Structure formats: C-alpha cells, structure tokens
C-alpha cells in the first residue's frame, strides 16, 4: 500500500465514518433520554434514502403509506389508553397530535408533486418531512407501554422492532435497491489527494449537524430539558419536564440526524429496504466507543469505525466485518474498565 492508496482509503473511510457519526449521535441522544438502544435507526436512514429516490422518480414514496399505517396504530393505542385511564376529554388532542399532524405532512407531500419534480432541495426537504414522524410514532406504539422496563428488555424489543420494520420496508419499498442523483460532481484536488464533492459534503454535513446539535443543547430550553431528562428522569419530572415529551423530541431530533445521513449516503451507495441494519450496527459500534454517553467520543469512534472498515476492505475484503466486530471486544473491555463504578447500580 502506497501513500496514494492510503489517502484514498482514509478519505473514503472518513466519509463513511461521517455517515456513521450522524446515526451514532442520534442513537446516543435517544439512549440517554429514553434508555432505548434504538437499533432501527439505521432503518430510518435507509428509508430516507428510499424516499428520496422515489420522489426523484416521481412516485409517491412508500414512506407515506408507512406513516399512515403507523399514525393509525398510534392513534388507536393512545385512544384506548386514554379511555382506560378515564381521560376521554384528551382524545381530541390525541387525534390532532397522532393522526391529523402526520396525515397533514403526508398530504403536503402528496399535493405538491409538481414542486418536487423541479427542485432537489424540495425533494430532500419532503423526504425529511416524511421520515420525521416515524420514530416518534414507533415510540408511542412500541416503547411507551414498557418505558419502565430494563435496558436489556428495551434492547430486545428494539431487535424485534427492527425485524418488523425490515418487513414493512420490503412491503412499501420493494426488494430493489436505489441510488439517487449525485448532489455535486465537483472534485477537489490537493496535490495527489483527490476528494469528491460528495465526500466533502458528507463530512461538512456531519460537522454542521453535530454543531447544530451542540447549540441546540446549550442554548435552547428544549435542548436543556432533554439534557435534564438524560441526567435524571425523576428529577426532570419534578421540574415539570415530561419525560414522554422529551422522548418524542429526542426521537424527532435523532430521526433528523439519521434522515440527513440517509440523504447523504443515497448518491454514493445503493440503499435497500434492509441496508439499515449493518449501517446502524456499525454506527452503534461508534456510539459504544463513546460509551453511549459522550458525543465527542461517539464522533471519534464512528470516524474510527469508518476508517478501519475502509482499510480492512482493502486488506481482506471477505473478513472486513469480522475485523470490525472483533475489534469491538477490546473496546468494550476498555470501556468497561473505564466505567468501573457501575457495580452498585447493578444491585437488585
């Protein structure tokens, strides 16, 4: 391997890593706020890519159907729960929030077909609009009823949810993969190093959105309430912050990050209805390097996974995944040693 190849691999790895950064940060956000390891996050990214591709081809994407189905289920679950608790007067609000709002979003996209034919920016915007309701609706349907369960139980539920989403993805998007039009054809050259515009865009977006998230946490009230919920759920509740609401916001913000990564990856790689799993899993490795709490750690970890993967695929492509996932074990041991004081939290 000479310097040229190494630099190509490094840049390619950093671009993949930047994608993982976005997904991993969303994963960490949701984990800290709700204790859910949201495995289907990769699926959200893949679905965004498929949505964008469908819009490009002038079709109403399967996401619309998915949102309608989920909105219906969430409304049903919510209404039944309200009736049971004798809070029937809250039903109109629930209908507005869980049914009318998502359907309105779908409606907007459906009605504005002539618009998205013409503009890529609008297509990207509509893809994000369509993808945002999915995770919060899933939260309502799947996780809210078992919010007090152990992290492990929630993890297992996440796995099952991932299976269900992959099935729904196949139903709504079909088995074939998609690849969207490149956003830019620019190529930058620095001496012998060549960076494609798309790779630069991915890295720029990762930095931009990580930065925005930081500002959101530090300078907005909602961001601060999310952080408060993450640190101490019952304490936050005492301060008038509803953990459910924080959860919903976390899912929306996280979905935005995953959605952006899906948009960015769609032109460089073919996305399938089931591409999300390995994508999410590799991002998850990055999140674990950050200990599932530290955002800078997560970002570094995800970039590291991307670069490692890139070099591993050059050295021995068949064993690439073996290498990436084997590496997780020493990382876990290191993380476990770093966070030794957890013993008493395990008790009973």
């Amino acid at each position, binding site marked *: 391997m000479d310097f040229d190849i190494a630099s190509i691999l490094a840049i390619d790895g950093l671009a993949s890593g930047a994608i993982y950064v976005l997904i991993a940060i969303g994963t960490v956000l949701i984990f800290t706020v709700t204790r859910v390891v949201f495995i289907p996050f990769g699926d959200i990214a893949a679905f965004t890519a498929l949505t964008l591709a469908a819009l490009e081809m002038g079709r109403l994407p399967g996401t619309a159907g998915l949102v309608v189905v989920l909105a219906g289920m969430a409304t049903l679950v919510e209404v039944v729960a309200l009736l049971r608790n004798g809070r029937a007067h809250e039903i109109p609000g629930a209908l507005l929030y869980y049914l009318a709002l998502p359907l309105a979003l779908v409606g907007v996209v459906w009605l504005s077909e002539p618009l998205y034919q013409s503009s890529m920016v609008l297509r990207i915007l509509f893809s994000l609009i369509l993808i945002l309701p999915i995770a919060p609706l899933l939260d309502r349907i799947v996780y809210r009823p078992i919010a007090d369960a152990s992290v492990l139980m929630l993890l297992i539920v996440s796995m099952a949810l991932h299976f269900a989403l992959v099935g729904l993805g196949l139903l709504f998007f079909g088995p074939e*993969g998609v690849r969207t039009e490149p956003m830019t054809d620019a190529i930058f050259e620095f001496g012998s190093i060549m960076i494609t515009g798309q790779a630069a865009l991915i890295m720029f977006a990762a930095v931009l959105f990580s930065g925005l998230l930081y500002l959101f946490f530090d300078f907005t009230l909602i961001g601060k309430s999310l952080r408060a919920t993450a640190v101490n759920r019952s304490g936050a509740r005492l301060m008038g912050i509803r953990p459910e609401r924080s959860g919903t916001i976390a899912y929306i913000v996280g979905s935005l990050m995953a959605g952006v990564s899906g948009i960015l990856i769609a032109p460089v790689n073919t996305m399938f209805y089931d591409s999300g799993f390995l994508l999410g899993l590799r991002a998850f490795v990055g999140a674990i390097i950050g200990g599932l709490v530290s955002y800078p750690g997560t970002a570094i970890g995800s970039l590291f996974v991307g670069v490692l993967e890139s070099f591993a695929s050059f050295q021995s492509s068949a064993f690439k995944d073996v290498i990436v996932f084997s590496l997780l074990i020493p990382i876990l041991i290191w993380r476990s040693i770093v966070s030794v004081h957890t013993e008493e939290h395990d008790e009973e």
Partner: protein
Amino acid sequence: MRRSLLLAATLLSGVVSTTFAHADIKVGFVTSLSGNGASIGIPYSKGIKAGQQYQSEVGGEKITVIELDDGADPSAATRNARKLVEEDKVDILIGTATAPSTIAMMAVAKELRVPMIAISPVKLDEGDGSNQWGVTMPQPPALMASVIADRMVRDGEKRIGYIGFADAWGDLVYEGAKAAEEAGKIEVLTNERYTRTDTSVTGQILKVLASKPDAVLLGGSATQGALPPLELAKRGYKGELYGLAALVNADFIRVGGKAVEGVKVSTGPIIVAEQLPEEHFAKKISMEFRDAYQKANGEPTTDGFSAYSFDAWVILVDAAERALKAEQPGTPAFREALKEEIFKGDEVAGVHGVYNFRKGNSYGVDERSLVVVKLVDGKWTYEP
C-alpha cells in the same frame, strides 16, 4: 405444560390436514419473498404466475400451486419443503431463490421421494443418478463463465480482475472463472468480495486496479452489482467489463447509468428475445412468456429470473402430460412417474434454453442456452 403443547400441535395439525382428496396436480413452490433473497425471489414468484397463466391445465387436470416464503433461510426452506410434502402432499417441488436453501430443499425432496426442479444454479453430485430426484433449471455458472471467457479470448482480454458478492453466488462465479483459468483461457488476478449491504467498495476496487487487469469480471447481481462499475469509473478505469446473467436487471442499468455502458454479459436468450432471428428456438415461446407475464402480473418482464421459474413450469407440464397417462396425481407412483418423465424430456424448448435432463447430471442445458449481450444505450443488445 408439555401436554398443552402437544394439544396445540395436535389441533394445529388437525386443522391444516383437513385436505380432501382430489386429482389436481399440486405444485409446492418455495421462494424468498422476504430476506436477502427477495430481489430474486419475487421475480421467481411472478414467473410461476406467468406459467400458470400460460398453461393452467394438463391432460384435463388442473395444476394448483402452493407458495411459501423461506426468507432466504435454509432451515425455513427445509421446513417448508417438508410441510408441502407431508401436509399438502404436493406432487413436485419447485424452489428457491438462494443456493443454500435450494440445496437444503433438494435433500428433503430426495428423502421424501418427490421430484424437485431447482431454480437456483446448484450443482448436485448425483453419481449415476439412480436415486436422483432433482434437476436444475439455470445455466451452470461454470458454463456461463466459460461462454464469457470465450468472449474475453475473442476480444483479446487475458488478465482478468474479479470482484463479486461475499455469498454463494460470488463463490460460484469465482469458481467458474477459475475453471476457465485452468483451461488456459484467462488469468484471474484478484478475488475481491463485498456484501450486498456495503456502503463502499473503494478498498476492493483499488486492489483490483493495483493488479492492472485487462478486463474486470463482475460477480454481483441486480442493483448492488452496479457498485463496482461505478467505483471503477470513478477511479478512471477504462477497460472492458464482463458479467454473468445475474446482472441482467433493470435496476442494474438504472443505478449503473453510464458506468455500466458496454458491459458484456452471458445470459439466456430471453433477454434479447425480440432481437433473435425468427428460427431461434426461444423466439416463439419467449413472446408467449412475455404475454402471459403481462397478463398475470400486470407489468412487463424486466429480468431473467422470472424466466427460470417459467421454464420450470414448462418442464413440469411436459413431464406431467406423459406421467398422467400412467398414474393418478397425489400418489407416490405419480411422483415416481413424474420424476422419470422429467428425465425423458427431449429437446424441450423454454425461454432460456433447450432442456435435455438426463440422470447423473442435474443440469440439462448446453451452449445454446447462452448468448452474449452487450449494454448499449441502456438496452441489452444481442452480440452473436
């Protein structure tokens, strides 16, 4: 607790085994409607529907199909095959979308003595064929590779880089290429692999390019098969591209765009049926297949996979016609007769090839089943 389980099992089997005897010919069809074989499995399913549309009766007996999904999991394929034979008493098995699942089904077919038509390219070691219950529809990858290797030789390409899927298909193509290497036709320089869900093949492509190949052989399929050509184009590769039938797919062309222009593929004649000369064996039946497919599925054909399951139907109908003269469907004797008749089929023309299945060999096609086609302006063109 075990009792309640048994009770449940008994109830279940009671409910499902309330099938009454009739003389329909029952076809047990397993395919991957979900899982990572779905992009091939769903066309297979549509091909069977086209077959039903094409000919739904033989010798006055209706042919019914029971379709089950295996999710590309060999355990599920095995269970499905057993279910179809033991519960639904099917007369013949057809399946499935992935090679491992097909091999697994074939073992069941042999054990339970039911004829089986494999629609994935699996090579079965049948010895003298005295206890052979299965045949394989597609052209053997080795034959495909050999045809395309001949074309490479004709084109003057010698040093070949290989990149393919890290799965059974990728293995088969590589083995085919190695066989051509041993025959002294070409030289295979690399064996790079990627998975269907990979986000990038940069590392693999750099390695292929580092070996300075004359041409690159692609061992992928469908959409994701376009990933290496795209990366090759990005890295400035100007040489020829070759591939096998699995690349013949609308999404491969759509996704690959300019990068896959000019790729040469060895595939069944159905792909270029319209361009075939009138006297070609596949011309007439291909047109009929196109019509039946359109009627059954409400869309035009776009791939070569559905044609394999359609050809399986053709073989089934051909053999059943003769077997019905001797035996009643739904009996072991009919299954035995059906199997024997499959091996007696003579020059049965399908849309992919002319089939002559004989005991001792699971494949039944020859060079006639393969043509070389080239992608020109997004269309496959016949290159005799």
